[in-house]
């Protein structure tokens, strides 16, 4: 059943690219919409050429350094953003005074479209990877922060009291109740925050850089090379899928204690 479904999904993919190719190949469709037979290919690219570009990237190895840079930026943005978000979430969650004081600022910073910070980060951190990491961090931070903040507030008071009665002091309470509870909220937002880290990296590259998949796309766009733009988008999509798969694997390992959908009551 699963194999058949997969076969159909694959067939659909082939069909989409087939139709795309038919509609864009110069001369294949009579020029009804476009007066120039090359116009469709100019705007929408041709799948065969797109795959040629991708093939060349991977066989000649030109893509690897760009993927590596984008991966580095994404990973750094996620780790730094998540760590800061965790720390800030725990702090504000446990200190009502600080939370009340900072509330309007947190709301304002979250409401601000943070992509506009990219030029500032360029000035501060240059065109290297750190300006992209900084942009990713601002995106990841708030997702993790709000999840942890909520997580700390929703720690079961019974579990808390029980741990107190078992003799935990304040530090042990933080380490054995608040932290695991908050971490589980971080992991539940893992897919979103890793995705955001990637967005930060690519948008940053697109706005100004010398390496990375975003840079490739930006360069090709400047030369009106639509096939390379699409090639970059496809590579990026595949990259995001691989990342998402890795995140799902990590989640499965780290959240074994969570009641899953498939195994609610085994006994």
């Amino acid at each position, binding site marked *: 059943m699963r194999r058949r479904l997969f076969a159909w999904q694959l067939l659909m993919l082939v069909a989409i690219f087939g139709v795309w190719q038919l509609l864009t190949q110069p001369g294949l469709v009579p020029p009804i919409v476009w007066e120039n037979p090359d116009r469709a290919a100019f705007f929408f690219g041709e799948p065969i050429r797109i795959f040629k570009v991708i093939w060349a990237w991977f066989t000649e190895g030109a893509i690897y350094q760009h993927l590596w840079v984008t991966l580095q930026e994404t990973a750094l943005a996620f780790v730094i953003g998540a760590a800061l978000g965790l720390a800030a979430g725990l702090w504000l969650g446990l200190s009502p005074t600080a939370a009340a004081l900072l509330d309007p600022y947190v709301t304002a910073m979250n409401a601000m479209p943070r992509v506009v910070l990219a030029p500032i980060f360029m000035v501060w951190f240059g065109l290297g990877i750190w300006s992209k990491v900084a942009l990713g961090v601002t995106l990841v931070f708030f997702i993790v922060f709000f999840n942890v903040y909520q997580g700390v507030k929703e720690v*079961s008071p*019974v*579990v808390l*009291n*029980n*741990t*107190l*009665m*078992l*003799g*935990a*002091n304040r530090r*042990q309470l933080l380490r*054995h*109740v608040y932290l*695991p*509870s908050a971490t*589980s909220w971080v992991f539940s937002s893992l897919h979103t925050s890793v995705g955001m880290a990637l967005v930060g990296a690519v948008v940053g590259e697109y706005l100004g850089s010398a390496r990375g998949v975003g840079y490739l796309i930006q360069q090709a766009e400047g030369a009106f090379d639509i096939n390379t733009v699409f090639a970059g988008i496809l590579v990026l999509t595949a990259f995001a899928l691989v990342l998402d798969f890795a995140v799902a694997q990590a989640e499965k390992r780290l959240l*074994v*204690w*969570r*009641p899953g959908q498939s*195994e*609610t*009551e*085994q*006994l």
Partner: protein
Amino acid sequence: MAAAVEFDRVTCTFAGTGGPYTAVKEVTLAIGEGEFVSVVGPTGCGKSTLLNVAAGLLRPTGGAVRIFGAPLAGINRKAGYMFQSEALMPWRNCLANVTAGLEFRGVPADEAKRQAQAWLERVGLAGFGDRYPHQLSGGMRKRTSLAQMLILDPPILLMDEPFSALDIQTRQLMENELLELWSANRKSVIFITHDLEEAIALSDRVVVLSAGPATHPIGEFAIDLPRPRDVAEIRLTPRFIALHDRIWHSMKEEVLKGYAQTKNRVVA
């Protein structure tokens, strides 16, 4: 000799939405060393409030609590507490939940693990140590809680309707196991329940509370049933029935009062 737990005119008032609410008023009660005392009362009468005061989780508005003669300040380190709802840490497996208390006290990990294994065996959970709470049944989770509390060997046990969420068979099994563990190593127990039969079957003494607000004890009954007891069988003896009758009569009015209040609250 000083009582294990002594409530001295304890009053608890909360700031509610509709003005201050006095849950417990002027409760004076003493639980002797090694004594098993059940506290029964209508629902919502502040039984749990009383237990939280004894645990040190809640500071009374008035009056004092003394533990073995010493006034209580902060968390009661001599007491173990078994909660009505789920209290296990869901991110720790069964074994790690049982070792938690020892861990907090700085007991070396392998020693804590050894003791926890022994306790899991004693509560019938040998071989389930690596399960997480959500993988255990309700009864097994209660057993884990029991082991988690008893491993610290507290001289006082505070139990807040611990078995109320279980089905009747599991519940009687657990009650018998509790009695067995208790008789092997007599601790002072305050057992909160709304189930009079459970209270009589387990205890040396039953304290009846009035309906809230301003709950206070309105009767005390010594339970002179012989031990060891089987909670299922003892319910059928004439002495049990006579005791049940007497206590129920004193409670009935309060239960009806409590019921009427809850009903009015729902309507309002």
